[in-house]
């Protein structure tokens, strides 16, 4: 009996040690939900080519930042805006020198396929028959961009009407899209690449060039907690390679600044500036 128990304990310890070693061969990636679809495919391609297992944790940019800070784990940090990456550098999560840009995203109105509500611009979101939701301006990058766009393009009274009309603040861009696809809203303000996520269910309505204040710019960096920085760098290299970028193009993401040109020069990334009233204290 005692012998059997010892065998079980030794067996469990062996599994524990082996699993620990196996983990050392893996990479942990924290990624903003905005890039979930292409990153999933990039990871799958990379795993097939190199045999390196990659685990990805997706979420709103600040939730993944919190996860990284609290767990002190992770190898690669991928976000849709340089200002979030700056915060990650400030908090000691990412090596500044390792940061590289890889994709651009233009804010746009996303509607049901065929645009049945005939939504043509920001002002249409004020209509009584249009159900509208946006991402949370408190902690989701596209939510912050949305608040900034409304502040700059709507009058005070229009903004008040719109704020009352917002059905919900989604906690990430995936959830925002889900609400649209589930027909709980008629329009959301997201990024133009969302048309590539569900091309048979959604369409985009481009904002007028004067309405776009800034565009999102994806960045990836090696995390300070990485146990294998070389491997983390290699994954980022792959992300920026032609193959990696082709995956992003396939999902409607824009690979170059020229692709993302909205008809006028706009800020790339940066911290959106919006009224404090968007955030409830």
């Amino acid at each position, binding site marked *: 009996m005692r012998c059997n128990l010892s065998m079980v304990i030794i067996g469990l310890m062996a599994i524990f040690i082996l699993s620990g070693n196996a983990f050392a061969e893996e990479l942990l990636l924290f990624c903003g939900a905005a890039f979930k679809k292409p990153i999933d495919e990039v990871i799958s391609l990379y795993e097939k080519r190199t045999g390196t297992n990659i685990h990805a944790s997706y979420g709103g940019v600040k939730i993944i930042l919190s996860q990284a800070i609290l767990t002190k784990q992770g190898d690669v940090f991928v976000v849709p805006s340089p200002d979030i990456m700056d915060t990650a550098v400030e908090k000691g999560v990412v090596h500044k020198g390792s940061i590289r840009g890889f994709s651009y995203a233009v804010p746009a109105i996303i509607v049901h396929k065929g645009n049945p509500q005939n939504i043509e611009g920001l002002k249409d979101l004020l209509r009584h028959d249009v159900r509208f939701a946006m991402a949370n301006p408190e902690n989701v990058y596209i939510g912050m961009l949305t608040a900034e766009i409304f502040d700059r393009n709507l009058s005070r009274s229009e903004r008040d009407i719109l704020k009352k009309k917002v059905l919900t*603040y989604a906690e990430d861009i995936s959830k925002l899209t889900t609400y649209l696809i*589930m027909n709980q809203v008629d329009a959301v303000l997201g990024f133009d690449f969302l048309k590539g996520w569900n091309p048979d269910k959604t369409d985009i309505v481009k904002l007028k060039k004067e309405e776009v204040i800034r565009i999102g710019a994806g960045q990836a960096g090696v995390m300070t907690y990485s146990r294998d920085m070389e491997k983390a760098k290699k994954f980022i290299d792959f992300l920026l390679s032609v193959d990696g970028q082709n995956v992003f193009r396939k999902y409607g993401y824009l690979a170059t600044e020229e692709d993302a040109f909205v008809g006028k020069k706009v800020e790339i990334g940066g911290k959106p500036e919006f009224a404090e009233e968007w955030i409830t204290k």
Partner: protein
Amino acid sequence: MSFKRLSISFVFLTFFLYAGLILSLFYFWKGGLLLETLFSERTLYSICLSLLAATVSTLLSIFIAVPSAYALSRFEFIGKRTIDTVLELPMIVSPAALGAMLLIFFNNPVGIWIQESGIIFVFAVSGIILAQFITTAGIATRLIKAVMDEIPQRYEDVARSLGASPVKAFFTITIPLAKRGIIVSSILTWAKALGEFGATITIAGSMAMKTETLPIAIFMRLASADIEGTVVLILILISMGLGILYSVRLLMRKPPYA
């Protein structure tokens, strides 16, 4: 080591596991933030909303669970085993999946009709109550059924042989005997509803001053990389939940005819 000591040591092991987790919160403790957070309009709204939604959903769950549990415990009928198994759905399916199921339901013709008839659930407080009700109704039924199973049917048979109707036997024999078990089940149901997060955020969203319950407020703080604020809200939820549960237990310890 005696068996008594061994079993008690397991109790303390479990206790220290949770106590350790609570104590670790103080690693990010920022004293001044407690009162500021506690008395902010947003937190007070979340607290009231959480208490209200958990209480209403618990009352609804218990209202459905008591007769259901009695039927499952006492009668044989077609589909009984299937129904009994389906009641475990909230335990098998994750809360987020339950929330997704609700969202999908409100996207089908029946769901759309309900919403268009004036009862709005999606992105509304009623959605929180519905999510908590769906998460707890099956569990409440299962808990109360276990209580009913422990009460011998012979007592009801005796009452009926003395002329009591089935309804009278139920209210004068079964319910008084099951009272304590029903209260305990209600407490557990309430606690489960108070902490519910996944289904609630999926169906009702996370809008401050509208559908932000305390568990959602905690998530939103964490989602804003505000660890200290998260800690304060977790401590408020723990104090509130454990405080209320402990008070109810104390009240229940009083002898009924004292």
